[in-house]
């Protein structure tokens, strides 16, 4: 479903030097597959997810999503692709503060196939937030906020869920529970999962795991 080929991405540092962040010869992810990607802080995990999500365009290489090269698409087409095919769970959840839990989920749907209020409620209910639909993020616990973020990521029935350090802000006791929830829901909703983390304990829960240092052949060299 997803294949990354000869991907290169570099940033220019404040002192003008070019810093190569990603140099990945090949990385692939099958439909409904769940992969954990390990990497130290600053190793380019978020940048890779942003490139796969179509938020960033690679300097070179291909990001093939069901055979279509995202790198060749216009920004608007990548936005459309992201809205329809990708769910994103952020470490800090990135919920919109002025919106209720339900509105956070609905808003994500509006940029995709359209708002489906019944499905949004069903998702939140499934995540145990049926009685918190009208709560704003500031009125929810950290765990509840993360579940809203997960509901939002799954709301457009995406083929791929990207999770960026989803347990990074959680109490260790709850982190395992949250991880299990993410994996279970992605499986139930037929979505592939690419989860990045620097926490080695996360590895144990995945059949397949990679380290960014291994993938990043060019940077390592």
């Amino acid at each position: 479903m997803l294949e990354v080929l000869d991907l290169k991405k570099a940033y220019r540092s404040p002192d003008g030097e070019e810093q190569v962040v990603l140099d990945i010869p090949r990385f692939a992810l099958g439909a409904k597959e769940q992969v954990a990607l390990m990497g130290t802080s600053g190793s380019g995990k978020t940048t890779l997810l942003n490139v796969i999500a179509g938020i960033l365009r690679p300097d070179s290489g291909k990001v093939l999503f069901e055979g279509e090269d995202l790198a060749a698409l216009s920004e608007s087409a990548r936005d459309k692709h992201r809205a329809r095919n990708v769910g994103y769970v952020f470490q800090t959840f990135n919920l919109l503060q002025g919106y209720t839990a339900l509105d956070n989920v609905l808003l994500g749907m509006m940029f995709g196939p359209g708002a489906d209020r019944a499905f949004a409620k069903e998702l939140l209910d499934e995540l145990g937030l049926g009685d918190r639909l009208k709560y704003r993020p500031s009125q929810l616990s950290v765990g509840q906020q993360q579940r809203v973020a997960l509901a939002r990521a799954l709301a457009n029935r995406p083929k791929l869920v990207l999770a960026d350090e989803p347990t990074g802000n959680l109490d260790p006791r709850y982190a395992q529970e949250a991880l299990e929830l993410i994996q279970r829901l992605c499986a139930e909703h037929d979505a592939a999962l690419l989860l990045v983390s620097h926490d080695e304990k996360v590895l144990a829960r995945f059949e397949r795991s990679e380290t960014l240092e291994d993938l990043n052949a060019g940077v390592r060299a």
Partner: protein
Amino acid sequence: MIGGLAMIVGRSLRQHALSTVVTVASAALGSGLVMAVFAVSEQSKEAFSGGPVGFDAVLGARGSELQLVLNTVFHLETSPGNLPWEKYVAMKEDRRVERAIPYAVGDNLEGFRIVGTTAELFEDAERFRLVGDSRLFDPERREALLGSTVARELGLRIGSRVHPSHGLEHNEHHDHDEEYVIVGVFEPSNSPNDRVVWIPIEGIFRMGGHVLRGSGEHYEAKPGEEIEDEHKEVSAVLLKFRGGNRTGQTFSNQINLEEKDATLAWPIGKSMAELFNKLGWVNRILEVVAYLVVAVAAGSILASLYNTMNERRREFAILRALGARRRTVFSAIVVEAGTIAALGAALGFAVYYGILLAAAAVVQRQTGVVLEAGAWHPALALTPAGMLAMGVLAGCLPAYKAYATDVAANLVPTS
């Protein structure tokens, strides 16, 4: 997509409620002021120069046509002087004149102007409708008729007795000895006539201390003695012509070009229109001030939205990460600015009506002329449209800032 835009805009307006209220209020003020300036000036011009007064011209002493019209039709200003009675008689007997009504002024009743005239004036039933048991005055007696405003404000009714004062401003030390009985009150006519006390013209001639100079010599009327026509004077004669404009033009040429002691204000509306044209620069200044207020309102929309852009960068980044296009984010800000402007324009009608009603009340109190608050003016459509356009334009700069938000950089933290 539209639902998403509406949700983003509605949420932002609520989240920034205070600045929303302030900017909406400033837009309302700007919009209302522009509409009021245009509408009030236009309606004033219409009311003072376009309204039918029942006469075609005013004949008065040599002087300003405008002063003559203001004094005779609007009961403002002082009289430019007097005409000998024979001028009135000549007009009355001219076959080209349908009606000639003499006016004599110079007294007041607690500030309301007293006009001496003949009962013939009140034959115009459209403009002069008596209420209840009222009747017209007897020209031989000290009887008075009241405009509706005079009766209401002075609390006078049929049977009340009053003492006129000398001059056009009230001064209790200048009260005449003569006592007049109110015999009639007119229904409101929404015209300057509502503010007038009408008495027989003979009453003016015979008021104590009044000196007549119709013959060129001073003459004071004596009780019981008939006043010879040669002594009588009038302040003005209201004229209605037969033959319309052609007759008016002939009289105008004859009196204004060939005579030295009289002026014919014809047509009546022309003098007032010329006054408004001369005062056009005042309107221009008011319009400029109103436009500036609109510009400030648009500026405040721009500033209030622009100032929130930094705090909203993460919001835009999140929206983009959820799949919102750049143009969606741009549109959200433009729609937000447009919504503020539209709300302001809508509330501007309340400001407009407030100003118009206040202006109309002042104008009516001062002159008796009624401005029509519901009258249509193109500014009532163009101003809200302009306000909306200015608001949308003002939203473009902050919208561009939102449009240019770096998504990845604002989806903090990065690892």
